[in-house]
């Protein structure tokens, strides 16, 4: 099978993608939103003409709100992020933005997060990602417990988790680049996208592993001798149609969110879309080929034990 034969090539392609993503995350790390750092977000919409950017920045800077960021949203909106505002500072900010009522506006959103809430969410998000990793690894090892030759059950678990790491690092790297150009920030929905991706992408891996499991069982029953590589290659070919079609339907659904969905869920859908595409490709070209070295290693060990 094509993928199995050229597995070294695909190793390097996805490896390169991974390195590029990690580099992006390190060199241009996306900023964390106030949900994690604590702070205040105020979004207003001007009913009349929106004052020019420089003037808005000058007005906000005059208030001393701790390195505030001022961004235009849509045609009429402005979003200001700052440290956690007191009610007085909040009033002062609205006054400054409207220039004391000269530029009429309505407040669309006021979101203020104290530092302790932010810290807690950060810790929880990290724990959640770790927990999903662990739970999936254990579940896969459990589901494949009866298939222990030539790949030990934990081999499937470890491979899936290695896959999952790729499945979330690449979209995160993409997000870093996207955020670099658009100023998007890492928010809760971004974390949700990563966790949902892990839950989804593992499906692709499971479907392929399930085929491998089925073939191994059938081969054993019918006493067919087939190299493990061949079995893996066959499994990937047979599941190709399903892998692509499912990703396509999910991608179509996500496309709907990106095109017409609400502003707040757009970045979520974009990150997921990249993840779904990368996840499908990586499960096709990487998951099973990753199993082959483990199989070779396990067989060598078994042979060594017998002697």
């Amino acid at each position, binding site marked *: 099978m094509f993928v199995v034969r050229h597995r070294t090539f695909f190793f390097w392609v996805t490896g390169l993608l991974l390195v590029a993503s990690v580099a992006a995350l390190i060199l241009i790390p996306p900023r964390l939103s106030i949900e994690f750092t604590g702070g205040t977000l105020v979004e207003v919409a001007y009913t009349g003409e929106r004052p020019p950017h420089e003037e808005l920045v000058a007005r906000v800077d005059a208030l001393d709100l701790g390195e505030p960021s001022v961004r235009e949203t849509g045609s009429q909106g402005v979003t200001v992020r700052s440290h956690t505002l007191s*009610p007085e500072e909040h009033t002062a900010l609205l006054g400054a933005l409207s220039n004391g009522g000269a530029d009429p506006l309505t407040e*669309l959103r006021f979101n203020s997060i*104290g530092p302790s809430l932010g810290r807690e*969410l950060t810790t929880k998000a990290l*724990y959640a990602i770790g927990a999903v990793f662990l739970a999936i690894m254990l579940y896969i090892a459990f589901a494949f417990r009866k298939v222990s030759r030539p790949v030990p059950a934990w081999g499937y678990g470890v491979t899936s988790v290695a896959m999952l790491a790729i499945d979330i690092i690449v979209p995160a790297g993409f997000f870093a680049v996207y955020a670099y150009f658009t100023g998007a920030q890492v928010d809760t929905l971004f974390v949700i996208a990563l966790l949902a991706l892990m*839950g989804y992408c*593992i499906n692709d891996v499971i479907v392929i592993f399930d085929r491998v499991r089925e073939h191994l069982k059938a081969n054993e029953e019918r006493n067919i001798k087939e190299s493990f590589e061949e079995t893996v290659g066959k499994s990937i070919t047979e599941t190709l149609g399903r892998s692509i079609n499912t990703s396509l339907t999910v991608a*179509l659904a996500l496309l709907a969110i990106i095109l017409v969905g*609400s502003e707040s869920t757009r970045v979520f859908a974009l990150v997921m879309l990249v993840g779904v595409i990368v996840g499908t490709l990586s499960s096709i070209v990487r998951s099973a080929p990753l199993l082959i070295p483990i199989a070779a290693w396990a067989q060598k060990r078994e042979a060594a034990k017998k002697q």
Partner: protein
Amino acid sequence: MRYLPALTVLAIAGLLTWFVISTSGPETKFPIKLGLDLAGGTELIYKADTSNIVSDKQGALNSLRDVIENRVNLFGVAEPRVELEQSSAVAGEVEDRLLLELPGVTDTQAAIAAIGETPVLEFKLASFGAAPVTTGTTTSINLEQVYTDTGLTGRYLKSSELQFGPASAGGVANQPIIVLNFNEEGAALFEKITTENVGKPLAILLDGEVISSPTIQEPITGGVATITGQFTPTEARDLVRNLNFGALPVPIELAGSNTVGPTLGIDAYEAGLLATVIGFALVALFMVLWYRLPGLVAVIALVIYMLITIALIKVVPITLTASGIAALILSIGMAVDANVLIFERMKEELRLGKAPRDAVHIGFGRAWPAIRDGHLTMLISSGILFWMGTSIVQGFALVFGLGVIASLITAVMITRVFLVAILPEEASPLWRTLLGTGFGHKPKNT
């Protein structure tokens, strides 16, 4: 009778449709509850300072919640939510929090002012740095007073009321008197304090300010205290109201707030609905074009899937947020996965020359382990997401988890039942075309 299960499913689908449509009006028992980010409103998160509470922390927190609930009701909010919450065990520091959701309230500061003003009532023994100095008719008190905690606070207050004193009570006629009724625990504490400190002044502090500092004449039993300060009747009436509704047993501090204006919410809701419809249409179109007849069956199953999910959202009820709508759309794309798996397996069996109905049975059996494992891992991640907390994440996790379960039910029970009912025993060329895949006219795999 192979049509019976399919007819049953159709009947159930009909009932579900009737339920969803009949409960879609404005006056219904099962409306779709919209989260604050869609309906507009204010969420306030308070940190409760329980460091001074030695015993029965939970009791104090419960009464804190009741007091705040009273204040919210006074403020006039429809369907508010007031909940106690504790910071997660992984956060390191344990914090007690009070979570308030005020739908429709978009003036954050007015809400904070009305709810968050925290009159804390305390009773403290006042001792003086030096003895009071009497000069002529006035007694001047040394300003450097030292207050010692007695442990008696507003949390022991059962109620307070306003009375007007008679002339014979030693004061001026019709002077406002505030009567404080302690609960059992408070009464015992009050008795103990007054017994041990006869002759000393007992200061009553509201928000750290002394409002009255009567001297204890004798031990007071029965748990009733009176304050006769220099109040005007209006002041006294306000104080009684504040004490009844606002004497917080535990000091609170605003830790976070989130206000979404009504226009932003409506926009997000409508955009979400449109995205749901378009997402559904795109997925349905693809399924019918590629998988043909089975694809059509899958679309019918998807409609029933949506009906089940919406009915569950209404009945449970699950508060729908923008992230929840995203989860719903995402799960539409994922719900067909099980169908795709089954159809691909079915196709393989057909290619091997099996009769259509046998192919359905074998295809389902073969696809099942992968479907089971895939759905379970998705349920695991939605469970962990739910644990992560915050309304955005939980809104997503609930709908996503629900979608996974509904998808499992529809794919395994509904698609199979329909296919078995429709498919013939033997496959004619027409049936082969209908069961083939691809966009072309001729079946690709025959």
